[in-house]
């Protein structure tokens, strides 16, 4: 992938299939050649320094766009063509889900800062917290986003959900070295805005030993009420809602793509192991007990991959939000079950950190419960559909 291909000359065009394939194989080479050697021992956590070096390399090959250059990097092709990004994230996650999430978070920050006309040079150091401190905005969020059937109290509910209630912290995952945090809120007119906060102005705790994504850190933020942002978006309410809706969809697609890649990795380990491990005098992939586990993994991978490809081949808009959430609601359950099945296929060694499977299980769990659990997504979808009659 050369700079020309990734550079500004292709900024606004949709890539051809051949170009996508070329980029895809380039990223696969990067993942296998540069990331894989650093994470070949899953029990050893990738250091921040190595993560930074990988980010630099990702910039060099155009997987992550530079601050002042638009190209064909992650989320750079826009709402018209998220397919490439989904495939690239899956490719990276096949090697390491944490690195993939890190790249996604950078790209999403860059997309949001750019779209919101906020200083894009902050992208590298910007963490994102897209949702409120608990849940997915209840039934108020779909009403608000659709501007349909709004009820008294919705605005107050969403404002509190996004600002915090001074008792429950916001939890988010990011690279350890972030300096600014991008977060949505509802202003005094009831309009959606995004604010950029300095880390120094927030009450932040870095949490140890979180469930997944060992390469990144988990943070608790005590809330935004009364904290003065360093920058606030000033786009129209409708435009900001559209951008928020897109960000939610990019995030959902990325989580699915990363979980898919991680489970493909787990499936490879499980199928390789079960092709050589013997029980009862035959290799275990000849036993129905293991075949059922392997079959479940393959079915989950195929069904999620096909749904995801189909979904990300269409143009995203506010109208597609519910569909993206629907697919996400089902996909994460399937992928978590598949990750567990991969671990189960390997018996005792599957439980050990050096096999890498338990990390996949943890990462998939973390993706399932973050920014919308299956239950929260279902409630959102139900209200959305009710409003559409």
């Amino acid at each position, binding site marked *: 992938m050369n700079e020309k291909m990734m550079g500004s000359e292709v900024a606004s065009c949709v890539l051809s299939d051949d170009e996508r394939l070329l980029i895809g194989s380039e990223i696969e080479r990067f993942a296998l050649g540069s990331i894989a050697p650093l994470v070949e021992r899953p029990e050893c956590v990738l250091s921040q320094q190595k993560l930074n070096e990988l980010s630099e390399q990702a910039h060099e090959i155009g997987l992550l766009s530079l601050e002042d250059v638009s190209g064909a990097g992650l989320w750079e092709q826009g709402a018209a063509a998220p397919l490439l990004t989904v495939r690239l994230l899956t490719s990276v996650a096949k090697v390491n889900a944490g690195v993939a999430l890190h790249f996604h978070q950078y790209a999403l920050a860059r997309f949001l800062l750019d779209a919101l006309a906020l200083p894009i040079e902050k992208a590298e150091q910007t963490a994102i917290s897209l949702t409120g401190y608990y849940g997915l905005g209840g039934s108020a969020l779909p009403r608000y986003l659709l501007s349909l059937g709004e009820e008294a109290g919705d605005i107050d509910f969403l404002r509190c959900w996004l600002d915090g209630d001074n008792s429950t912290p916001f939890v988010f995952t990011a690279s350890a070295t972030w300096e600014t945090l991008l977060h949505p809120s509802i202003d005094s007119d009831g309009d959606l805005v995004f604010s950029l906060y300095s880390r120094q102005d927030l009450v932040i705790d870095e949490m140890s030993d979180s469930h997944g994504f060992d390469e990144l850190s988990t943070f608790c933020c005590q809330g935004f009420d009364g904290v003065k942002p360093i920058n606030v978006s000033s786009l129209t309410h409708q435009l900001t809602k559209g951008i928020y809706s897109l960000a939610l969809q990019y995030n959902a697609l990325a989580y699915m793509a990363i979980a898919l890649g991680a489970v493909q990795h787990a499936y490879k380990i499980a199928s390789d192991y079960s092709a050589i491990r013997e*029980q*009862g005098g035959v290799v275990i992939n000849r036993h129905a007990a293991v075949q059922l586990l392997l079959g479940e993994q393959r079915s989950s991978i195929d069904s999620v991959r096909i749904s995801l490809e189909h979904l990300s081949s269409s143009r995203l808009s506010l109208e597609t939000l519910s569909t993206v959430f629907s697919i996400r609601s089902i996909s994460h359950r399937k992928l978590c079950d598949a990750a*567990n099945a991969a671990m189960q296929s390997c018996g005792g060694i599957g*439980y050990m950190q050096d096999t890498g499977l*338990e990390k996949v299980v943890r990462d998939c769990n973390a993706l*399932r*419960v973050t920014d919308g*659990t299956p*239950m929260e997504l279902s409630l959102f979808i139900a209200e959305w559909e009710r409003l559409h009659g």
Partner: protein
Amino acid sequence: MGELINTSAIEGHLSGLHNLSPRKLFPLFPGLTRPLVNYKPDPIWLRDTKLLPKALQKHRHNARVFAEKELRPLALKMDAAEHLPAGEINPELMQLLIKAGKQGFLSDMLPRPLGSVPVVSYSNSIAYYQAIKVEEFARVCGGTMLLLNAHNLGIAPILLSGDVSAIRRFVLPAFLESKLGNPHLFAFAITEPSAGSDVEDGVGASLYQPRVIAKKVPGGWVLNGRKCFISGGDIAKSIIVFSALEVDGKREGMESWTPFLVKKTMKGLRVERTELKMGMRASGAAELSFEDVFVPDNHVIGGLRKGWAINRAVLNHSRIPVAAMGVGLAQGAVDAATEFVCKTTLVGKPLIHYQEIQLMIAQMNAETSAIRFMNWKQAEAYAPRQAAASMCKFHATDRAVKVCEMAMDLLGNHGVLHDNNVEKCFRDARLTQIFEGTNQINRLSVIEDMQEEFLQKMSK
């Protein structure tokens, strides 16, 4: 328990003082039928405890008190503690073992005065007694629970062998040591690097050539080979090692399997490593190597070539407590999730007031209650049937993991935080689907045990 009734109510439900509430109406039933209606708002733990035999009610209470007092403060800390070199134990865990030993939790496989089980409790099956304790310990911490209870898996083959001499020589002195504050742990070593399921399944065993071999020499046996994933094998003073025999240069198969009691101090025994596990981290899973380890004849447990039968009997007994681990971990997740939804507010309203939260909490309680009573019922048997023990094991642990997943879902973004405990419950519970026979092997064990029924139907 009247203090639990107050005028407020969970949203969507009538207060206990409302004129239509059963809490208010049931006590007004005539004396004749009042015993048929239950209106006391006792916590579910108390209600369940009252369903146990009297002796086990007290045991359950004692186990909970010990778990809350001694295991709770260590649970998250030990889970996150640095992985120590093989054979070393965290000083705080050693203190826990000392306390557990002094309070009789390391000698509770035999009645007093030989062990520490009240004679009245011993009228229930030992699996039942263990299941009650294990459930309470696992509810608080899977890792320290396993640290304390893998030991009983090592004791079980000696007891089930019926070898009174071995019990007298090995078990009773160890129990005494533990009671005096010098913990003497046992471990159970069956798994080999090339055989996990083969040592837990009849057909697999019939085809497997064991790699740990005991060669006959004058006065005893010389053991060579490796065992892996041995819970507590890193710190056990006595290890029951199942080995095939080699006599007069002829190497025998699994039918020759024999349990040998190997002392930690015996020359040639080495703890090669302890695994970096996903969960249950306070307990080591050790790889042990045996290099020309001489074991005297009188360390053979239960007789030569009795190992396979003893192993299967042990598993039938131990799978009930493993199911109890699942129940306890599920309960731990339910408790942590309940705490979260009662303490956490969404826009000023505690989460428990939201109907979707109530539905999940109800489902998690139902799942946990179902596996608890399945296990308790089967634990009543003094001689657990293979099918019953395996059904309890795989079903309870599978459902337990699902309950832990639900708890993580309930907490959402907060579910990933170590401090909230539900993700630890998940990681700990995940092991129970794998050890003591994977849940796939346990399903097949059910069929093996039921085969006469099926054969009979086929013959008609």
